């Protein structure tokens, strides 16, 4: 079986799994004052320090959460709620955010009458900032928070987060970035980016599912989503998941420290995949920025084919990948990212995402290139429904 869906989830790194099991055997609530509690607390705080160190943050800026989705919601809703006033009620987002951000923003718009500005992207999937500049000139006072992902989860295009943060800085507007696909894959330095908040997730970089973190600058407040024991600066209550946090720290530090060599290896494999796929299926369209993209991401449209049909045929042939689209009640919808990039609805339904991760080898690429032409032939015969 060739697994080419590492952006969905990637296996835990052996050292992260070891850290998890080692810690899970120990007793202790990190909020308790006795010996067991102190041991747990030490594990958590060391994890916090290690994550902060490799990501250019201060330990006090790390807030552990139960998922990337939670951290995204906490940043967008929490900062918006804290900063909103009668006159300041606008969120600036982009057309290509992950649902964890996009739907949180939409919810605030639908249920709390937040004004929403959605920044467009160019045809390579990169956010355009012209509109933001105009907005900041005229109505900066209206904006509670700006959110822009670091790298797109579908087409892999890297986003101008630093530029946006620099534009927002003079106005004192906090910028949040969903860096779930970026951390461990491209250089990420929280302080240098100028962002006020940054989301990361454990299971996209070799840590456990159900772990995530929000890096939140100390001078930025966020109204909590969860109220309770007051953990994590009283911003995220809930008993700390000590083994999860230990494993997350192990995964983040390993991924960041080995990033340069691993990214080069993955980019090499990816470039090979792209070249061989194009040779095998000449009419395939390579989506996203060919240069400024995640090293392990290759995203294609296959004209005349339905992404779902291709996925099914590849799955049957032992190759696992993703369609570029989200599901609504099990029905594939055209990808909002491709639509935002200007693709026709049919092309937006005909795409597949192949994502490489730390266990990926040339054999996975071989399997894909072997299975794909027949899958495309059949899917084309079936056509678009």
């Amino acid at each position, binding site marked *: 079986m060739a697994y080419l869906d590492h952006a969905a989830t990637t296996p835990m790194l052996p050292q992260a799994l070891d850290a998890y099991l080692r810690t899970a055997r120990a007793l202790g609530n990190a909020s308790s004052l006795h010996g067991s509690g102190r041991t747990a607390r030490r594990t958590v705080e060391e994890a916090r320090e290690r994550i902060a160190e490799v990501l250019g943050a201060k330990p006090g800026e790390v807030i552990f959460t139960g998922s990337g989705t939670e951290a995204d919601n906490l940043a967008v809703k929490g900062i918006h709620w804290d900063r909103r006033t009668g006159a300041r009620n606008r969120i600036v987002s982009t057309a290509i955010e992950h649902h964890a951000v996009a739907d949180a923003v939409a919810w605030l718009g639908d249920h709390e009458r937040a004004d929403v500005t959605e920044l467009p992207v160019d045809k390579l999937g990169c956010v355009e900032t012209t509109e933001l500049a105009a907005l900041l000139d005229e109505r900066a006072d209206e904006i509670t928070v700006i959110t822009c992902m670091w790298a797109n989860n579908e087409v892999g295009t890297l986003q101008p987060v630093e530029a946006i943060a620099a534009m927002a800085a003079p106005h004192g507007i906090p910028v949040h970035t969903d860096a779930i696909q970026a951390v461990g894959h491209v250089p990420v330095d929280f302080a240098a980016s100028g962002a006020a908040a940054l989301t990361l997730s454990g299971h996209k970089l070799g840590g456990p599912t159900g772990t995530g973190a929000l890096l939140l600058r100390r001078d930025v407040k966020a109204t909590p989503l969860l109220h309770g024991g007051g953990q994590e600066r009283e911003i995220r209550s809930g008993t700390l998941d000590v083994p999860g946090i230990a494993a997350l720290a192990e995964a983040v530090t390993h991924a960041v420290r080995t990033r340069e060599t691993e990214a080069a290896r993955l980019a090499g494999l990816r470039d090979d995949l792209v070249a061989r796929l194009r040779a095998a299926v000449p009419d395939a369209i390579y989506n996203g920025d060919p240069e400024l993209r995640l090293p392990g991401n290759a995203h294609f449209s296959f004209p005349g084919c339905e992404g779902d049909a291709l996925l099914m045929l590849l799955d049957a042939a032992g190759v696992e990948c993703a369609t570029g689209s989200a599901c609504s009640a*099990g029905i*594939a919808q055209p990808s909002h990212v491709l639509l935002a990039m200007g693709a026709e609805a049919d092309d937006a339904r005909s795409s597949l995402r192949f994502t490489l991760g730390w266990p990926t080898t040339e054999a996975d690429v071989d399997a894909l290139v072997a299975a794909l032409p027949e899958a495309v032939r059949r*899917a084309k015969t*079936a056509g678009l429904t």
Partner: protein
Amino acid sequence: MSGGVDSAVAAARAVEAGHDVTGVHLALSKNPQTYRTGARGCCTIEDSRDARRAADVLGIPFYVWDMAERFHEDVVEDFYAEYANGRTPNPCLRCNEKIKFAAVLDRAMALGFDAVATGHYARKGEDGLLRRAVDPGKDQSYVLAVLTPAQLAHSIFPLGDTPKDQVRVEAENRGLAVARKPDSHDICFIADGDTSGFLKNRLGTEEGEIVDAATGEVLGSHDGSHQFTIGQRHGLGLKRPAADGRPRYVLSITPVDNRVQVGPREALRIDRIRTGRPVWLAPEREGPFEAEVQLRAHGEVYPATVHADADGLTARLHKPAFGVAAGQALVVYDPDTTGDAVLASGTIDSTASIEAAGV
């Protein structure tokens, strides 16, 4: 896989028979929430979840295929159009004809599959003919009688040899959570079961007369001829009883002048039926032949002499039928102790009473 017990067990049996099986759930509405009413119908989000769960237990891949547009065009629009024309359609039959064994089968074949297996209660004989299921109460050969031999050749009905209650027991034994899920009886795209309201929503309301067929007397009014079916007795809203005190039935519906004619049950008596272009599931027959015909799903069976030509079937019933509606299918069976075989079918266009015509 609709999410019900039948298709789940059918899939299990197909797997056991050694087939390489993929589960497919059909999304038949662009907005499934609007159809969502618990365990009813076959196109709700919960049903899709139940189907996926069954596929997971069987260890087979599972996909949702979006057939909403085709379904709307070929089944729902046809449903409206038939009622608007004073006829009574059978949407399940239309769905089998246009969706399950056409759009789905075509797509499956293109993707490299050999056949579509469903949870319908019907059998396919060694001779390739479609036959009734062993469970007479569940037999669905009637709604499958629109399949051409080519479609039939690529269809599998794993449940035809088993009574329904045994299928439930089998589901239970296989650990399928849908074992006790209630059967769906309603039209899947009318979630609340209110066919009258569904038709009014689209076709609107227009006041018309309810007329005594014999005397021409106006007996009452209605708000749309599409609200009626031939043979219908209830819901006529007539204030005065008939002179003879006997119940009155809908005898004819004429959308052109929005008139509904009513009369006594005898007036519904017919013994001659003409259909539109026939579908032959068995080798075509020429000249008159003796057979049995069925005029509605789970309806009575009538011995008949059937004439066939290129444009339709004509059946002379050997005993009269009452309340036969145009738009339903006439299905011709060859009686057989090993399971009646379907020979042909056609959509009923008109009916007549030879007796009444004085022939």
